[in-house]
């Protein structure tokens, strides 16, 4: 949903640079102010809870309970599991590949200088491989997040904000 909006905003602002002056900025700015207003109760939750911890409980304490409850909910655990599984695997993969590359380049230059085709040697292939693997992992991460995580996370976001908003008031 908000992705769609982002895109539209980008397209309008790109396709019509003449609109970049005041009226458009004003519209954007005022639009944002409104959404900021509606967002205010949610962002005030931690403050409410902070105050609640100082004094006796009251409704503020339950904002913390809401976050704990959401954290323990199966829906959230699923989002977290999917995120962590991808990120941990991908981090281990790219980090060990990078460290192996740097260590090989500094400690085994003879290996890296072995020719592959023409003037291109192992080192050149490995270096361009680092670029390629970075682009591929970026693509894979974005795809994974979009297909496996975004929808569930957005639903959790609205649910959580609904719950905390009630508490804040």
């Amino acid at each position, binding site marked *: 949903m908000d992705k769609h909006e982002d895109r539209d905003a980008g397209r309008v602002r790109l396709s019509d640079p003449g609109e970049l002056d005041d009226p458009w900025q004003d519209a954007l700015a005022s639009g944002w102010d409104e959404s900021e207003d509606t967002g205010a109760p949610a962002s005030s939750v931690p403050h409410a809870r902070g105050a609640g911890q100082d004094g006796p409980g009251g409704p503020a304490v339950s904002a913390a309970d809401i976050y704990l409850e959401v954290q323990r909910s199966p829906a959230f655990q699923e989002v977290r599991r999917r995120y962590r599984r991808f990120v941990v695997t*991908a981090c281990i993969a790219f980090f060990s590949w990078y460290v192996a590359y740097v260590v090989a380049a500094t400690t085994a230059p003879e290996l890296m200088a072995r020719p592959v085709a023409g003037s291109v040697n192992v080192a050149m292939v490995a270096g361009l491989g680092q670029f390629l693997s970075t682009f591929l992992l*970026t693509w894979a991460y974005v795809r994974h997040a979009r297909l496996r995580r975004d929808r569930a996370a957005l639903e959790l976001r609205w649910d959580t904000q609904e719950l905390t908003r009630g508490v804040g008031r």
Partner: protein
Amino acid sequence: MSGDHQTLALVLFSVFVAVTLAITTWASRKRHGTAEEFYAGGRLFTPMENGFAIAGDYMSAASFLGIAGLIALYGYDGLLYSVGFLVAWLVVLFLVAELVRNCGRFTLADVVASRMNERPVRIAAGTSSVTVSVLYLVAQMVGAGSLVALLLGGTSGAAQSWTVVGVGALMVVYVSLGGMRATTWIQIVKAVLLMGGAIALTVLVLVRFHGDFDALLSTAAERSGHGERFLGPGLKYGGSWTARLDFISLGLALVLGTAGLPHILSRFYTVPTARAARRSVVWSIGLIGGFYLMTVVLGFGAAAIVGSDEVRRSNPAGNTAVSLLSLDLGGGADSTGGTILFAIVAAVAFATILAVVAGITLASSASVAHDLYASLRSRSRRKTREAPAKPRSEVAVARVAAVGIGAVAIGLGLLARDLNVAFLVGLAFAVAASANLPVLLYSLFWRGFTTRGAVWSVYGGLVPALVLVVLSPVVSGSPESIFPGVDFQVFPLQNPGLVSIPLGFLAGWIGTVTSEESPDEAKHAETEVRSLTGAGAV
């Protein structure tokens, strides 16, 4: 370099300065004076705009001229350097960008402080952020001075000093008047210019070799004077084992440091959602990756077309490789094409410095005002962000801080003018990786992390990194040191990352397991839920 080059380059400089000042005026005219506006540009940039701005913030003149020059002189080892700068973005994309966008408001300290006893954590994170920024800033300022002097042929000290003062003054104007909105647009303009310049030169190099990359490589190897060794690692970093370890240390610092750079982190707050932050990083990875691939072509192109010896004669560090290449590609030193291309390269380099410097100044003024000033001012400050007076006065402090940081940077830039400050960038990355990254990752992912752990991990990374540099050959004990006359060198490596990064993580762990305070389950739940879903994000 003849007078024509200089005149045209100066005209282009002036055009860029005029355009950016116009942007600043336009951005500041509509300012509301809120913290949201000043630090985050109203959080309304699109992912594409922010992606260009991130790329503009990240690609310093050191990358454009420095890495291409390193490749022209040392061949493959220059490429080795640029790989670290790119791979680092995977850490940012996977672990930092979205979560930081969801959890914080303006700075790194926001993310950590939301879980902890606010004041000590904020002061610690603010201090390390300012340290990183100042190190980076001084490197850029000194680079600006020597670069402009180099490109315009004026080697006099006065020209260099005036450049440092001029760049500093301009950036103070940009930041204090225009805030994040002006800074972002300057970075976007700069990124477009830089990409445009790099694409044009790359195409010309490839056309010269009829699109044959293999021929480019073999000609480069031939003309470098090193033969086949030019295309493999080891020419620059392959000497003693200390030199090799030093490079591994630098490589670690580059990969882990980017995610802790305050001016990069603050860019994620300029978009409305975490998803937009993710897509900005994708844009910037595309731009930065494409850019470094082009510097590879430019570097080997300079070696093949200009020749390594010629490059070294012009500037021993290789910083003029791209400008010499542009002269040749345009048709030679006395041709119109050569003059125009040379002036464009000089103007792009200048724009690059201004944009990077403005980004860092803004981030450090945010740390000073939002983290340090706000924490130090009132010991028992309640979170009264709703109070109308407070954000406005904080912005006023931030504007003053920008002026102050500008003055400090100009002063240090003038003092350090004749020193070799290339190590400062590596050091800034090392400090960011040792002091900022551990605390950030621990607070986002570790349930048991405590206030003491947070404070220890910041200082446990920051202090060793700085102390090790003071004890390293950079400062004393070798002819290239800052103080060549004395010798208190104990630590053999120039870059402290290999030791200080693990120390930062270790200190955070020890501080946490030894602390009396039990971790706050509810706050951890809140951080985790907010970071992954965006609930309650501003």
